């Protein structure tokens, strides 16, 4: 016969994962991930119209750039100030933090380099007449497109770095 209390205890037992406390650098990485994504979302919202990237005046691109950079600096300063306060309060740190941050920096840099290669391919594909039509092609000579691509490269590198801090801290 099906024994309900035993079944509940069994499910509780197999579904129990010991809680792993978040270190300060992991919390900081989550915050930076959210802040960076917010800024990039703002840039996307000011660049896309549906799935297309329409023409924009230089003045409009300047405004987007200034606001995005300003917001990124303010969010980063706020995050750093919060982290300093938490550190002073004795927040949990990991002895491996320095090693993790070094590896994460290298991963983030690698992601940015890969992003630059993608932009280069776009230039080459744009000029090659026999490129397959299924290969996605952007027009890097179009200012708003190039603007978005460069922001995307920075965001991918930043995202990869923060994600690496979170993942490496859990390994």
């Amino acid at each position, binding site marked *: 016969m099906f024994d309900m209390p035993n079944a509940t205890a069994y499910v509780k037992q197999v579904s129990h994962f*010991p809680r792993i*406390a978040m*270190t300060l650098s992991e919390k900081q990485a989550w915050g930076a991930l959210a802040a960076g994504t917010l800024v990039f979302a703002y840039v996307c919202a000011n660049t896309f119209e549906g799935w297309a990237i329409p023409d924009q005046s230089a003045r409009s691109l300047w405004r987007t750039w200034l606001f995005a950079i300003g917001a990124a600096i303010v969010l980063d300063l706020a995050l750093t100030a919060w982290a300093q306060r938490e550190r002073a309060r004795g927040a*949990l*740190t*990991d*002895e*491996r933090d320095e090693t993790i941050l070094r590896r994460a920096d290298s991963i983030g840099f690698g992601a940015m380099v890969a992003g630059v290669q993608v932009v280069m391919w776009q230039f080459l594909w744009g000029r090659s007449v026999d490129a397959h039509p299924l290969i996605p092609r952007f027009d890097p000579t179009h200012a708003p497109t190039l603007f978005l691509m460069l922001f995307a490269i920075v965001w991918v590198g930043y995202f990869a770095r923060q994600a690496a801090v979170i993942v490496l*801290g859990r*390994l």
Partner: protein
Amino acid sequence: VNPPAKGHVTNVIRALRTERGLTQQELADVVGATRQTIIAVEAEKYAPSLELAFRIARALERPFEAVFSFKP
């Protein structure tokens, strides 16, 4: 003179910890580290700092050389 080949630090933390009935989190709390660090040290994926290694040996009430060994 050829430089020595990179060695490997091994340990018996897991065996000693379970022998004493400690969880990874409890050992981490005693030595002031995170559970993730204890997991990495036990799996020999990370060689702890000298200070943490001494703390772990003390928490397990064993001499340092009974917990850690070095394979050149």
